């Protein structure tokens, strides 16, 4: 398919002896926010980890632009321009905020103009620049994790449940930040919070039990209450 920045084609992933992904096929078009919805344990995190090469697909293909990344080592995948914000945020607590940010820069240096924009999006990053990251609050850590993913312009950012456990005010601030980030890069967002997902997403796919059970436009899903009820009772029953 043309226009897709990331394509998964019949991807099967095992964790240990368990067969977790049962043939995921997914197209992420270039630009904007695309959402992967699904209830707890559906396989969202496993899908993102498989794209990053942190789990290995046993079968199927993962193509990023024209690169087949199915068997590529994780660092090489990252160097193609994919950033990953894991569910646990992956903050280095023993390092300072600055050191966390510096690691995400391939050269170890910062672009001042870009850094200024990041500070404007997430003032806490500037405020706690020289503090040890372990001392940040949950919301601040999440902001650092996202800031780290945009220290340099990436082609694609994979973000795993950024709103989990955050206060509504922080979530609202994050919507603005995501909109701005999505103007220069493509975001694949894993979410369980439908309101958050709906306000951002262009495309949406719903995953259940290691399979894609629906995909289409977010607008269509947002306006079709019957479909929402069917899919979201499936995907979000445990959360509402």
């Amino acid at each position, binding site marked *: 398919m043309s226009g897709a920045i990331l394509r998964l084609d019949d991807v099967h992933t095992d964790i240990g002896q368990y067969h977790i992904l049962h043939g995921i096929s997914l197209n992420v078009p270039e630009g904007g926010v695309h959402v992967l919805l699904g209830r707890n344990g559906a396989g969202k995190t496993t899908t993102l980890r498989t794209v990053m090469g942190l789990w290995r697909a046993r079968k199927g293909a993962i193509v990023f632009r024209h690169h087949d990344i199915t068997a590529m080592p994780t*660092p090489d995948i*990252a*160097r193609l321009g994919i950033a990953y914000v894991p569910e*646990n945020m*992956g903050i*280095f*607590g023993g*390092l300072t905020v600055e*050191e966390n940010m510096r690691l995400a820069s391939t050269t170890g240096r910062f672009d001042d103009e870009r850094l200024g924009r990041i500070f404007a999006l997430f003032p806490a990053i500037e405020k706690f620049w020289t503090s040890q990251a372990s001392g940040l609050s949950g919301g601040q850590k999440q902001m650092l994790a996202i800031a780290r993913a945009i220290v340099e312009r990436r082609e694609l950012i994979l973000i795993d449940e950024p709103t989990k456990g955050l206060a509504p005010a922080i979530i609202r601030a994050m919507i603005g930040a995501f909109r701005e980030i999505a103007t220069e890069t493509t975001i694949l967002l894993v979410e369980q919070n439908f309101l958050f997902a709906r306000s951002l997403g262009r495309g949406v796919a719903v995953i259940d039990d290691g399979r894609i059970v629906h995909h289409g436009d977010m607008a269509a899903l947002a306006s079709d209450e019957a479909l929402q009820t069917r899919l979201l009772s499936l995907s979000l029953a445990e959360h509402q």
Partner: protein
Amino acid sequence: MNALLDRVGGVYALPVILAILAFAAIGSTSTWVTLTAAGLAMGMMIFLMASGLSLIFGLMDVLNFGHSAFVSFGAFIAASVLAALGAWLAADSVLLNIAALMAAIAAATAFGALAGWGFERVIVKPVYKDHLRQILITMGALIVAEQLLLAIWGGTPIAVARPAFLTGSIIIGDVAIEAYRIFALLLGLVVYVGMYLALNRTRIGLLIRAGVENREMVESLGFRIDRLFIGVFMAGSALAAMGGAMWAGYQSLITPALGQELMIIVFIVVIIGGLGSIQGSLLGAILVGLMTNYVAFLFPKLALASNMLLMMAVLLWRPYGLKPAVKG
């Protein structure tokens, strides 16, 4: 107890507290100073051996039971180089003395780095992420290395020559401190400061500290941890061999069993200090060095047991050691 300790400098106050307790028990200032100097010197040599092991585990979760082979080889290579340079050692010129000593330490360290590279590629690389096989294969490698040691140097103890300028003691009032101990202490400090700067002031150091915390995240940011790990493994092995070389000069009589004997202490130090942190290794090494020397004087029969007790006490109090690296 924790709050009180934090007010006097946290866990770093422990060696000072130990030294004060020992002072009260020993009673004689000159004996106490001698024992303390011996403990610090021993601690610095153990630190050289322990810090590499700790980082190797911290970065890749690799349990290397073969680490002591680098200590033994370092000791024997240094002894051979010193023997070959006997004329320089005995010479009146301090410069020649130092040259011989440096050559011995450099030879051992270079061997450690090279052998570490081969060991990592051949023995360790195939068993990343598999602790049971790591233990089995590195122990197997250790047995092979010990047989090699026997085949090359034989089983009888070997006398190690000491450079003339480090033979005597430095006497201040009624206190005598062996010159070699001061040398060991200084060299250990230099290595510690070097490591500290490398870890805290360089980009490679930043990557290592981050990798100890969360290997996957460092890879997700685009860095090859496996390449970084080879470097850390080589450096750790080189430091172990350097520690062995220093130890050979300290003991003046070495046997092939030296690596194994030291390894028990090294493991105790790594566990007390906390895996993956060189501050922890230094703290653990100093505590164990002091403890060994004080107890050997006060209750000679309890020297090794005292370290085991120290380890158990620390683990009951802080299950991850005194200064563990943050794990993500």
